[in-house]
């Protein structure tokens, strides 16, 4: 988790706790891919993973009043996801895996490309592959200072202040560079979106 994630997550949680449902949507949009990836570790079938992910997210929403920010939101969400998956497997008469790291801390860092590739439909797989390669290709064409700024932020997880120090420029410049990098990449992604029945944001 990069610096700053916990702060914005907590802010969104507090808004959702005050009745702003959209704030919870933003958390879902941020973490549902990671949650799905985590669940695909335990459940192979793609539509089952979707069902369990949905159940976990609804459970999280209902339990949100009891979330007090003592752990990070994503750790809490992953734990709900793992419990939901375990219960699902038990209900289906399958044994929950015990040795593959049913653990929220580890879940953060696991890497399981192959499994995910297996369970995606060919179209979904093609789509996400295409989008990933657009991101990586556009990254290569970015002006050096934009590429460095977004790399330090997204990959190294540095704060704006740390990036400003590393790049020897004002914080406002860091902020603008990171935004321009994101926007340049997103502009290339947008033509690929909106081609499905699913709601694409």
């Amino acid at each position, binding site marked *: 988790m990069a*610096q700053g994630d916990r702060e*914005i997550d907590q802010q969104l949680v507090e808004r959702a706790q*005050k*009745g*702003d449902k959209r704030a919870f949507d933003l958390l879902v949009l941020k973490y549902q891919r990671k949650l799905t990836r985590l669940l695909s570790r335990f459940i192979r079938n793609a539509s089952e993973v979707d069902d369990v992910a*949905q159940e976990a997210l*609804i459970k999280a929403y209902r339990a949100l009043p009891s979330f007090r920010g003592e752990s990070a939101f994503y750790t809490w969400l992953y734990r709900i996801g793992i419990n939901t998956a375990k219960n699902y497997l038990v209900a289906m008469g399958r044994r929950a895996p015990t040795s593959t790291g049913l653990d929220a801390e580890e879940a953060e860092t696991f890497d399981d490309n192959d499994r995910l590739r297996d369970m995606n439909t060919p179209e979904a797989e093609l789509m996400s592959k295409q989008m990933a390669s657009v*991101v990586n290709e556009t990254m290569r064409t970015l002006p050096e200072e934009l590429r460095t700024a977004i790399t330090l932020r997204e990959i190294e997880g540095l704060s704006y202040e740390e990036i400003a120090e590393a790049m020897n420029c004002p914080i406002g410049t860091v902020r603008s560079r990171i935004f321009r990098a994101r926007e340049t990449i*997103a502009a290339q992604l*947008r033509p690929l979106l909106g081609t499905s029945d699913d709601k694409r944001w």
Partner: protein
Amino acid sequence: MEQEQLSALMDGELEADHADRLLRGMRDDPEAVAMWTQYHFIGDVLRGEPSLAPTMSARLAAALAAEPTILAPRRAERATNTRRISLQIAASVAGVAVVGWLAFSSVNDQPKPDEVIALASARDDAVRDLTRMHLEFSPHTAMPGVASYIRTVGINERDRVR
């Protein structure tokens, strides 16, 4: 400029009042929500995390929309650990007081709901909103607000995952 603010917001680098204003505006701004999602997707890809396309299925969106809106009691903002613990103790004491009050009042005359709610929400008016919002879950008693409050706490305890 607002888009740049959104980018800074994602990174937790926007001042609290700006963030608040932006988040409020985002409730009715699908384009901003789209940017939020795309920017996060870009981050996932750059970190080499296997990338699912940035979508929310219509089914999930509908299921979330169909959920009754939750409303949790407001917490003291930026409480220090010590203060948070003392508030929790205070909350427990308040809870015991409410239960005690209920136990006591059940053998005496029924208090008006508002009196009990006022006790329960000595620290926080949001509890009152919460009880009112969840009246539909309440069994038919002389004290609908109180009954639903107890019910809500029960659900929280059961669902708590930590």
